[in-house]
């Protein structure tokens, strides 16, 4: 950790809301060597689906459930016939429904990764993937006119970390870049460009690497995209138009305007998580109602669906976060 007290504070803030995930952070590390044990993360408690967003789970709880899996897992494991372990899928009729999220900013380093971390390590462990819309990954360099430029998709966070650490450890520690990259390399392998994302292509490699949020997003499709800047939203919506919507899968595209600095990214990450929780609650509620009642008496058209409620949810959320102007549309993959 940096000796800079501000960065120390940032680090502390970045980790405190999810002390449990922070504890389990080292776990994904050994996984690349053992791809068969690729889903060690336990499902959150089933009742969390109806709970309001509470970003501070007891740290012991997660660790405990990791050691002694809930009994639900028992009969699952017995019946699992295939080599791929299915212990992660602790699904019952009460299975916690989870929306799949995608976070997007310019360089896939600060804001999108902070949101990625928050969403993937919240108590619901949302499936998350993240992207950047820039042409290159640009990080602040020694001066405003000398940024550090990297390629998307082919450069890992670790490599950036090593390079910058070797170049000028003091500078990059003081401006928070090393701290950020260190966080990022514990989340996923490297920055990805939105425009190069093949929607629907499987992301099993990310799952096997143990990237945070890979669980559940292995299908390569998400339900919700969060961009962190209007131009990113424009770029995403425009790119989706350009792709021609071949997959026929709807996606909600939100923009939450977050300034590109560490402090604002932290705040914005929390706000995104809150919105995600609201959306997820609504979707899970809809599924639950449909699952219990709709089974017998047909799909009641009178019931408001999750998608329909999105404007209300966003309006409510916007009232609470007036400093983060939001934008939304429904687009297609």
């Amino acid at each position, binding site marked *: 950790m940096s000796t800079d007290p501000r960065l120390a504070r940032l680090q502390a803030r970045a980790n405190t809301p999810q002390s449990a995930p922070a504890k389990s952070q080292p776990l994904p590390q050994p996984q690349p060597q053992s791809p068969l044990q690729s889903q060690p993360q336990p499902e959150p408690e089933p009742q969390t689906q109806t709970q309001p967003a509470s970003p501070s789970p007891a740290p012991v709880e997660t660790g405990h459930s990791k050691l002694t899996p809930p009994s639900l897992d028992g*009969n*699952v494991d017995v019946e*699992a*016939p*295939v080599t*791929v372990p*299915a212990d992660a899928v602790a*699904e019952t*009729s009460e*299975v916690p429904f989870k929306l799949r999220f995608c976070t997007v900013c*310019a360089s896939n380093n600060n804001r999108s990764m902070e949101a990625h971390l928050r969403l993937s390590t919240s108590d619901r462990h949302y499936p998350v993937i993240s992207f950047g819309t820039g042409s290159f990954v*640009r990080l602040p360099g020694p001066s405003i*006119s000398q*940024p550090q430029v990297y390629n998307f998709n082919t450069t890992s966070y670790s490599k950036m970390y090593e390079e910058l650490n070797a170049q000028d450890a003091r500078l990059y520690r003081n401006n928070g870049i090393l701290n950020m990259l260190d966080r990022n390399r514990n989340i996923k392998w490297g920055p990805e460009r939105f*425009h190069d994302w093949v929607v*629907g*292509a*499987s992301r*099993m490699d990310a799952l096997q690497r143990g990237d945070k949020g890979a669980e559940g997003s292995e*299908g*390569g499709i998400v339900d919700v995209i969060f961009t962190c*800047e*209007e*131009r990113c939203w*424009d770029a995403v*919506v*425009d*790119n*989706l*138009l*350009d792709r*021609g*919507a*071949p*997959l*026929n899968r*709807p996606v909600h595209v939100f923009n939450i305007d977050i300034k590109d600095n560490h402090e604002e990214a932290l705040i914005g990450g929390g706000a995104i998580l809150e919105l995600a929780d609201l959306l997820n609650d609504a979707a899970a509620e809809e599924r639950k109602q*449909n*699952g219990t009642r*709709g089974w017998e*008496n*047909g*799909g009641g058209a009178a019931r*408001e*669906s*999750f*998608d*329909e409620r*999105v*404007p209300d949810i*966003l*309006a409510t959320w*916007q*009232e609470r976060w*007036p400093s983060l*102007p939001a*934008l939304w*549309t*429904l*687009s297609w993959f």
Partner: protein
Amino acid sequence: MAGVSASAAGMISQLDAARKLALADPQVYNQVLPGILPIIGPTAHVDVRRWGADFLAEAFASPSLSNSQKEQLSPEVTPTLRAMLEGPGEDPEVVKSVVQAAASLYPFVFRRIISHPNEAALWQDMTSIKLNILQRMDSFPVAIRICCIKFAQKVVQVETPGLIADPRRPEQNETSIALVPRNHPLLQLPNLEAEASGLLDRLLSVFQESSIDPILVDATINCLAVLIRSRPAISTKIVSAVLNFNPFKQANSPMTPRLKVIVRSMERTTRALLRWVLRSVPNPPLDQKIQAYLMRLQQSRAAILSDTTAQKRPAEPTDGLDDAKRQRLSGPRKFPAMPPPPNSIAQLFTLTEDPAVQQFDVSLLPGDLVSTVTAVFLQHLDSGVLDEAVNAIRARYSHLQKVSRPTPVPDVPMAGPTGIDDDDDYDPEFLTSGEPIVQATTEKALEELAQPAIELGPFELPKPPPLTGSEVAVLSDQTVGHVFQLVGSLEAAGQTHAKQKLGLNRLAASTNDRDSWVTILMRLATRAPARLDDVATALTGDADPNQPVKSEDSEERNVANRIRQTLFMYILDDFRPRLNIAISWLTEEWYADKLMAKTHPELDHLPNYSRWVHRLIDRLLPYLDARDKNLLIRFLSEIPSINRDILDRVKTLAKDPERISMCILSMQYLLMMRPPVRDTVLDAIESIWHDGDAQAKNATAKVLAKWRPGFLEQAGQPKREADVKEETTINGLKSPSASRADTGDPRKRKAKVAVVAGDG
């Protein structure tokens, strides 16, 4: 129920494992899909059906699974989908996924039917699915309805003639009725075309409905892009429908937060599509309409949303005016530079970089509309923004007036291509196919930069004309004068400070005070030119130290002497406080002369020291009064060398009755404290005794009686007795006869005195 749930959970975990295998290897779909179809049928648990429908939707959307594979799998899957869809009271989640899967599946089934006209059952299933979806479309929950919209879009896409990219390779062509043979038994072209046309109308009707549901609008707008691009026959119709849509239709009611979200969403989505059309599907007549529409949209937005956006983000007041880029929050607004001259008046007034707006010809609009729009616009315009713009134009104009040559320097340097902010590579206009525009902008900027403004060769200042002697003299005087001004300005500080005595550890001129600068001057004068011209001068011009001091004019006017002269005058200005400077200076002179004497042994005298000490005493003595005796004593005792010439000058004080005592006292001091010059001093006193009047004789007699006991007897002075007596009483010397005998040899005398004193 619990048992069912458990088994469902178990089943789903198995299914998930299978799904992951398929995700890892698309070939697995071929085995997995047929295997799971019976499991996920209408009788299965709702969770399993949800999973199954979602899996089908995922599989047929997956880019990993090849089109031919999907086509092959379609006959097996279609009946299952139909059964799920037609199941009574089916779960909406399932239906939603089924509709998605059907949308993906439809082109594959269609394609298969084109090549397999005999598979009537398959086509029957697909047609049932299609009819079912389209019939129930309006009664479905919104979540399913948006998927139905997408399904309808897909049907329209398939049933509208597409482009035949390569007739020889039908497998490369996009699926559409363009591939259907005229005599196909199942696919009747007129029916299909009519259906597509009707469906399209139904799709576009969402823009005319009175009660607007934003999610339906967004879903429709966002799926139209591919139709506009790949179906030229209907693209104009679609764009026109969108242009007739007013996202602000609902905005007349009070703006609730929800309404704000909705209006903003529809407006931005509409704009995104139209801007995409402008860029991706250029169509000049339509483009102008689109641009006019976008302008109107902006104005409406400024009018309706400006206050709300201002509340949300007061730092971004131009939010409603600039649709392309997020404005920088800090600093004044920057306007792009004009293109290089010659400029048109339009260019002069063009402050935007948006090519779409630049190309827009206002004259196309009817005059009354323009005036209305302008009036409304001015009402809502931030006056600060307008002022800025006017000032920018004004600056441009004055710049144009000034520039006489066609060598423009870009007023605004290119925004750093490497800026962290990443603004450079963001421009939704250019993201994908805006290459020509990018080039235009870049080339323009490059031209501006590359324009050779002025040919600048290596420039050399002409050599200055050689200075004449008098100029050198004036300049050196000025220089020295400057330094003395500095010394003068520092004087007060130098004196008021109680300076720490550092003794031998001190460094000369290490502080910025008077002493330091004086020291520097002294050393510049004494040491810098040492061994150069001084030697020559000393050897030739000023060889005789006893010679009276030469006049200043005869002296060589080099820098050293200028400094000396100035220093000299400086000391004389106020000699009492500056006597220590004189002493230091003379000490430096003496030291420098001594050093020179080492290398030039032939210089047995001290040229500079002698000259300046004589000159100083000459000028000093007239001003000394009786109270300055301590001054004189100090001066004579501290200057590094005393010779007969100096004493000869001091001696003249004895002629003044008021100052004779001062003279004698200083000499007495020398006698006591500077033994090496004792004889010289005594000689000087003797001469005073000889030349002086009675008072002088009286004053010197005492000294002589003490220090040269035999002298007075030899001279036969009447006051001898008294002198001796007094001397005896004072000094306790009791051997006048012995000392008298030794007068010839000064050394012996001295020794004798010492011995006597030691005895006493």
